[in-house]
């Protein structure tokens, strides 16, 4: 037994074993690399990527300016300046909506907090920029992200649920309620 060990260390047995292993990988070359910019890894369905603001199918913004996302966000990414819709005193909207994506940790709490599902997380992740000021997004940019990431849009709430309570009296062309 001792002799065997001796001989093994004499002929670098362990090193030869290791070299055999590397040679095996060399001859049976099966790379696990994904050539990233050319080949993209499929993302999971619930991937939390770039945030975007959504619209209804008639191009009106979903956001009602309630500030709940701002309150929910742990890293104070969001700033909402809400205002009345001009001429429609019962309806509010986000006059300005800013996101500082340098701080966002993509936790998705804002999406969860929104009462009207006005926020969505797209599958976009290639947002590296040279100037980090480019990551301070305003409402138009966020809406653009939402537009390109979510081409399928919901109907307005009133049309989704025919029996929903009508609080929005200024809404023109009030449809007939179905009973």
């Amino acid at each position, binding site marked *: 037994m001792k002799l065997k060990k001796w001989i093994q260390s004499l002929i670098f047995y362990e090193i030869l074993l290791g070299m055999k292993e590397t040679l095996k990988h060399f001859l049976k070359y099966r790379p696990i690399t994904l*050539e990233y910019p050319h080949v993209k890894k499929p993302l999971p369905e619930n991937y939390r990527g770039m945030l975007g603001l959504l619209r209804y199918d008639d191009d009106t913004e979903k956001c009602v300016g309630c500030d709940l996302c701002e309150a929910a966000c742990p890293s104070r990414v969001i700033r909402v300046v809400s205002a009345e819709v001009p001429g429609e005193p019962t309806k509010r909207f986000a006059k300005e909506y800013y996101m500082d994506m340098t701080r966002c940790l993509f936790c998705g709490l804002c999406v969860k907090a929104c009462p009207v599902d006005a926020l969505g997380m797209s599958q976009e992740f290639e947002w590296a920029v040279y100037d980090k000021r480019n990551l301070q997004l305003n409402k138009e940019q966020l809406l653009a992200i939402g537009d390109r990431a979510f081409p399928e849009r919901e109907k307005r709430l009133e049309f989704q649920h025919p029996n929903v309570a009508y609080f929005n009296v200024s809404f023109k062309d009030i449809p007939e309620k179905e009973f």
Partner: protein
Amino acid sequence: MFDTSIKLALTLSQIGAVMGVVLLTVAILTLLERKVLSWMQDRMGPMEVGPYGVLQPVADGLKLFFKEDIIPAGANKIMFSLAPILVLVPALIGFAVIPFGPNWTIDVMGVEFKPFVISDINIGVLYILAFASIGAYGVILGGWASNSKYSLLGGLRSAAQLISYELNVGLAIVGVLLLAGSLSLVEITEAQAGGFWNWFAFDPVPFPQFIAFVIFLIASVAETNRLPFDLPEAESELVAGFFTEYSGMRFAFFFMAEYANMILVSCMSTVLFFGGWHAPLPVLQAPGVFAWVTGIFWFTAKVYFFLFLFFWIRATLPRLRYDQLMRFGWKVLLPIALGNIVVTSLLAYIFPNG
């Protein structure tokens, strides 16, 4: 006068050709190393520049060429600029005595000219060893002149390492010198003519130099600062060792010197232990005037095998600790090398016509 100018022109063109081939090989090696390493590690290596990344060396060279050349504050400017040259020139100059084809002498307009070796001097082995030692100066000076603790530590480490392992390289070669009876690399190659059983690594009588070859290989891996003996560089501990502060073309010099040294020691192991340009079987050698074709082919094949071995070892082994390195060099390799000399000389004395 006419003779001298012809000789000059011939020699210069020969030097140009050899340097061209060596530098081209360096460029190929930088790509090949990354490719072989990544293949062994289930990766792809460079794939972007050119088809399958084959133009990567060109891109690397251009990048290094146009990079800013920084000399750190407080550095010794003369030494700092001298060190890369001191490393690169000895690495390239060693190729002057390497025979890469048959030992022919052709007559060009009355001038004797050896096409396959730049200069056949009778102390070729000593010459290479001497210049390898000068390369160590470049490493140490580069580390010292940079005015940086990482460089200094890397330089000191490599000083100790190069000195310890140079000894083993020298002692491992002594067996071959005893058998060949010459220090000229051309004559050592001539002494190994015939099949692979005449190569000094395998030649059964008087004593096969295979152990010496293994020692030579290990010590030369250490000499060229390659893994697992890359303590002077040690990216993970010393940033990049003695060339931490170097950038641009000066860094490229160190880089080229490392690869040129690899080629040089591969050539040396080919010539000293594996028969130089001789084919492994006599039938694989082209007869007559075409012997140089197979000669260069076999020489290249053997050199590339050793270069592959370098990459292979790098992909397999982790880096040694400093005390392990020293212990291995002085307490393991040195006694074995000395024992090899004793046994070889005894057997060579008993079987003088082996």
